[in-house]
């Protein structure tokens, strides 16, 4: 609604995020009255069309929710179905899953750092524009990203929507000698990842802090990727089996993504900053050192610094991948059988953007009778809106164009994966 006392800025669609969305800010009498992150990505109904499919199908189907983090969808789906069928995979399969997931962290974090987020800090509209002045930087990013993609491709057969992942394990596992050339690539990638941390650490970070409760998986002894207990900075800790008792999703009129909150506690944030804050002790010494040198403290509460956390996690993922390759022994069989059985299964893993939860109800023939998917972006939506409201409140003196650009950058801090969240950014600022 626009009346003559209101100015409305309309930026058609938010760029450099994955998926489609808009942001609506209403300012009344000089104060922020309402902020809505609108997700207008068309609804895609994944939970509905999983019903009636066989228990073996969700890894292939749910991968299609997101082209940037398909492995995350495949891994959470496998975990949930194996839980329903009371099957545990062999340690060799588990290690190979962690290895392919490292590939996705490297690829997805590097894509976000170099192609989506860094241009903001440097005043460019895209990495391609940046490449005109600093080709070497963009080339470094692309090489690092490629190392992640090569890892996914080697194990998964294809970098986007891998074909080799199945419930119970893989169709085929690599021989150790197939992994050897990759180890060399990853050595080079480690230097590129460390350079990336130093590079992003030097960006100019606005002073901005949030006070949300943060949530991530925790796996004592190791940095969480493919498994863990759900833990929050407010002291909650529960098994993935209790996820739905603690996390409540609600639909809001302005978005095709559902909003989530912690029962009785309210908004929260998941993602790299939450993971780091809750788990930094389990980073490798080199990644911890890089984090300290980059100025990250015990916790990360400035959303702008999430780019540094992503870079640190990239260092971790590269090192972890090297470690996994060195320790790799092909499992006796690529997959364990997963016979159908009636039951409900839940699984959560750490997607690059945060905790990703799946639940499936199976009938005795292994047919899915109900499915539920809670992606990180919908969990974060309420916290992002709250941050944006405070962010805008401190910048009302800016003209509309600058405010728009800065809001876009602020939203990119959270690396929102809008395709995931719908199973939606235009910026509208209404001032009166």
């Amino acid at each position: 609604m626009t009346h003559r006392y209101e100015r409305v800025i309309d930026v058609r669609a938010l760029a450099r995020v994955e998926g489609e969305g808009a942001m609506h800010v209403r300012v009344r009498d000089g104060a922020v009255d309402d902020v809505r992150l609108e997700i207008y990505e068309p609804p895609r109904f994944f939970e509905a069309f999983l019903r009636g499919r066989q228990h073996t199908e969700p890894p292939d189907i749910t991968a299609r929710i997101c082209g940037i983090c398909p492995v995350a969808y495949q891994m959470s789906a496998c975990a949930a179905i194996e839980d329903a069928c009371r099957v545990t995979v062999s340690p060799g399969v588990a290690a190979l899953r962690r290895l392919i997931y490292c590939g996705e962290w490297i690829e997805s974090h590097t894509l976000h750092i170099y192609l989506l987020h860094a241009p903001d800090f440097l005043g460019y509209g895209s990495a391609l524009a940046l490449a005109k002045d600093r080709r070497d930087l963009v080339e470094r990013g692309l090489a690092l990203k490629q190392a992640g993609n090569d890892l996914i491709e080697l194990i998964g057969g294809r970098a986007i929507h891998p074909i080799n992942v199945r419930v119970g394990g893989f169709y085929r596992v690599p021989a150790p000698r197939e992994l050897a050339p990759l180890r060399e690539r990853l050595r080079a990638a480690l230097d590129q990842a460390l350079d990336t941390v130093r590079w992003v650490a030097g960006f100019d970070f606005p002073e901005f802090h949030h006070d949300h409760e943060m949530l991530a998986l925790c796996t004592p002894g190791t940095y969480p990727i493919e498994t863990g207990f759900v833990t929050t900075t407010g002291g909650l800790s529960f098994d993935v089996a209790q996820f739905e008792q603690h996390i409540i999703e609600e639909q809001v009129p302005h978005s095709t993504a559902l909003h989530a909150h912690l029962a009785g506690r309210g908004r929260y944030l998941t993602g790299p900053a939450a993971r780091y804050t809750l788990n930094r002790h389990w980073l490798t010494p080199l990644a911890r050192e890089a984090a300290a040198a980059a100025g990250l403290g015990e916790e990360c509460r400035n959303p702008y610094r999430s780019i540094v956390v992503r870079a640190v996690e990239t260092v971790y993922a590269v090192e972890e991948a090297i470690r996994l390759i060195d320790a790799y022994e092909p499992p006796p069989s690529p997959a364990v059988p997963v016979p159908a059985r009636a039951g409900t299964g839940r699984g959560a893993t750490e997607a690059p953007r945060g905790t990703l939860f799946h639940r499936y109800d199976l009938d005795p023939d292994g047919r899915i009778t109900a499915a539920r998917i809670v992606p990180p972006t919908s969990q974060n939506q309420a916290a992002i809106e709250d941050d944006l409201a405070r962010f805008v409140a401190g910048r009302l003196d800016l003209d509309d164009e600058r405010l728009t650009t800065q809001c876009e950058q602020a939203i990119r801090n959270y690396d929102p994966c809008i395709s995931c969240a719908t199973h939606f950014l235009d910026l509208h600022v209404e001032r009166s």
Partner: protein
Amino acid sequence: MSTPTLAVWKFASCDGCQLSLLDCEDELLAVADRVRIAHFLEASSDVLPGPYDISLVEGSITTPEDAERIQRVRADSRILITIGACATAGGIQALRNQADVDEYAKVVYARPEYLSTLATSTPIAAHVDVDYELHGCPIDRRQLLDTIGALLAGRRPALPAHSVCFDCKLRNNVCVVVARGEPCLGPVTRAGCGAICPAFGRGCFGCFGPAESPNAPAEAALLRATGMSEDDIRRVHRTFNVTAFDTERAS
């Protein structure tokens, strides 16, 4: 001649096909040297006005607004190429076409009345003329590069219409049907992926959609012989390329 402009458009999709362009790490900057990226929201906030020389369209039409938007994209594009199963066949979202969408909406959303959605997910060619189609869920990035390269050189892109089986032979894959009795859609699926699944010991599940004039009855018999039930056969065709396989199987 001035540098040709390239635009990338997204409709209902997972972003995977346009991401394939960013995944051309080795060639991305070279492509960017030869075309002017004029509209590519996933990668760039710099947007230039049309018309555009080449438009890549990802995703299917699932909302009334998108049915109108695609008309504008067509009007603004000299060559329009659809990329991926969503854009060429309605994608996995087309599973709703034979279902009750209101019921689907209720499964996912507490307040379905807030949504604006069509009862169907339809390919781009059902709405506007399309010049070339790249199949796959996702598309193959080499094929994408070849296509852009061909158009820049003024040639017609060479897009395969034969089946995955041919590529399997070229790649010296052991046939998963013959050797292991695995069900495989390779004989009826369009080549272009490089026959990845059989190379990993898995039957093809048809993510590139039907090849030109496949022998559907012979394929069904083959699938039955490997032990698939009628229901399994129906489901495997009804996944990423529902509309395309349904049309083939009905004819």
